[in-house]
């Protein structure tokens, strides 16, 4: 089920993951039975709107979900090791070395009172047996690699002295400094301007070529992944509703939600006079609709959709859709 024949070896395999959050108003089923795979060197996207549970999926994978979260079931295999069964110390050893993460807003995700270089050097010092001097030169290397024009100046700067694009580069340098095989990027460009977004996406692609890492990109912007990812998972209300390789998904979306999402996305390449929309609202997370969670907004709703949750249907060639229309 891979886009390219050479990477037959899976890197990350998540199956039936359930992360529920206990909040005073009830239980939020943030991640509800998610299964997905990322192969080596591959770029995979997880696309969903706010509240779809995409970020919670990522946080659960590196086991940094909030304290109010409970993991009810699931397996997270990274290189065939189940992360959910690791003790805290071994998990800490994996973070930063095997799997690293880049977050959304580069301002709030950097420690404001530590120099940028020191924050990156910390990863190197934590995971490698090197001297401070060596760590420093490794960091400067990483800075150069992520296209920071004057690495020495940035090394000694505090985050508030850097621009948004530069901060995101520092965060990326931090993530790649120990050459992880999986890089998870959670909305890495949402807080940035369009031209800087292009720079950062370009950088992530280059790094992937250089370092041969896999990229797991989490985003709400389906336009962004059209260009940069091999395969796409579409997430709605805590569940994966469709999965396909990028070209197939855009060419013939199966799930009504994917279809609506694609139709609602405005592109600069064509003028649309009347926009087709997905009616209604995203459901209340503590009070999900019965049956298929998309049914109150679905134009093709049938009786069974209201009562029973649709199974994940394998359509062959790596395609998956969770919808009663294809049963």
């Amino acid at each position, binding site marked *: 089920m891979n886009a390219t024949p050479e990477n037959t070896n899976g890197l990350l395999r998540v199956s039936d993951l359930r992360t529920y959050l206990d909040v005073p108003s009830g239980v939020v089923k943030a991640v509800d039975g998610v299964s997905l795979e990322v192969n080596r060197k591959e770029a995979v996207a997880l696309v969903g709107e706010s509240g779809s549970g995409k970020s919670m999926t990522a946080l659960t994978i*590196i086991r*940094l979900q909030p304290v109010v979260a409970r993991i009810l079931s699931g397996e997270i295999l990274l290189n065939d090791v189940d992360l959910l069964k690791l003790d805290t110390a071994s998990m800490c050893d994996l973070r930063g070395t095997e799997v*690293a993460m880049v977050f959304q807003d580069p301002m*709030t995700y950097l*420690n*404001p*009172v530590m120099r940028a270089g020191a924050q990156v050097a910390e990863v190197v010092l*934590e995971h490698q047996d090197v001297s401070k001097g060596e760590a420093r030169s490794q960091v400067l290397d990483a800075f150069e690699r992520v296209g920071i024009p004057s690495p020495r100046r940035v090394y000694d700067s505090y985050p*508030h002295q850097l621009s948004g694009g530069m901060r995101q580069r520092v965060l990326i340098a931090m993530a790649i400094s120990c050459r992880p095989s999986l890089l998870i990027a959670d909305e890495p460009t949402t807080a940035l301007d369009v031209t800087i977004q292009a720079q950062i996406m370009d950088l992530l692609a280059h790094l992937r070529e250089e370092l041969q890492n896999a990229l797991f990109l989490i985003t709400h912007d389906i336009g962004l992944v059209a260009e940069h990812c091999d395969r796409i998972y579409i997430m709605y209300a805590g569940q994966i509703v469709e999965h396909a390789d990028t070209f197939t998904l855009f060419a013939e979306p199966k799930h009504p939600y994917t279809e609506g999402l694609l139709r609602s996305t405005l592109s600069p390449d064509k003028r649309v006079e009347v926009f087709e929309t997905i009616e209604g609202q995203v459901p209340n997370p503590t009070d999900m609709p019965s049956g298929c969670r998309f049914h109150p907004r679905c134009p093709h709703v049938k009786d069974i959709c209201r009562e029973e949750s649709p199974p994940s249907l394998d359509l062959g060639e790596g395609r998956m859709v969770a919808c009663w229309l294809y049963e």
Partner: protein
Amino acid sequence: MAGDYPLLRYSVRRILQAVPLIFWVVIINFTIIHLAPGDPAIYLASVTEATPEAYAELRKEFGLDKPLYVQMGIYLWKLLHLDLGYSTWHNSPVLGVILDRLPATMLLMATAFSIASLMGVVLGVIASRYSYSVGDHLATLASLAGYSMPIFWLGQLLILFFALYLDWLPSQGMYSMRGVEPGWPAVLDVLKHLLLPAITYATYHMTLVFRITRGKMQETLAQDFILTAKSKGLNERRVLYRHALRNALLPVVTVIGINFAYVMAGSVFTETVFGWPGMGRLIFESITARDYPMILGIFLVVSMMIVLANLITDILYAMIDPRVAYN
């Protein structure tokens, strides 16, 4: 170049700002005190049952017969020559009396203040680590109690229990009435006298610092860069102390600094309860005796201590948080 030393430039600016502030404080104090009905001459006259002629003589001696602005001019002129005036009650130079009493207060307050600050911070960090556990709830409630206790009542309770009921520690004064050999026995004697008043004062301060530290640590631990630190694979200790504490410390330092201003207020009560021969007693005695030069002198010294404490706080703040000095 000044631009290369933002911290130094910042410190100099803050010191220069403090000078006019002190000047204003002196003028305001002077005005308020002299506007009040009654004066030291009346007090002395009534104590000594003097004749009206002797009273007028006293007024002239103290310079109270001149117009207010002249008195103020004279006072400020003397002040410029570091002359704080002559105490009407103690019949000796103000500065001498203050310097005589200051060490006792400093011994009591400085000891209690520094130990309490340190303990407050450490306990606060521990409590934040175990947020919302039973222990944390109990500690929080206990701190609220300590913080709500009138300092003089706590002193009375401690005297009742440790000095009067258990008879372990002395209840009054700084030295034993019976002479003690000089050297170590004398030091031990002072320490025994110091213990109860120090605990009395420290309780309030420690609980305050604890509450602020715990609250700020909780806030900081919820921030995004903590997630980054964890995703780097740092262990919990590092995350807690290197990343969270340094950020949480800023408001704590401010509170400690502001609280230093109230050290003297606390000393009035502590020294009254325990008969401690320090500045706190002195101010109270001077107010009762309407000893204007003494009161003004103490106000000046205390105001300067407050300014100094604020200054140190600001500079510490700028050292911890680079954003302060650079902006």
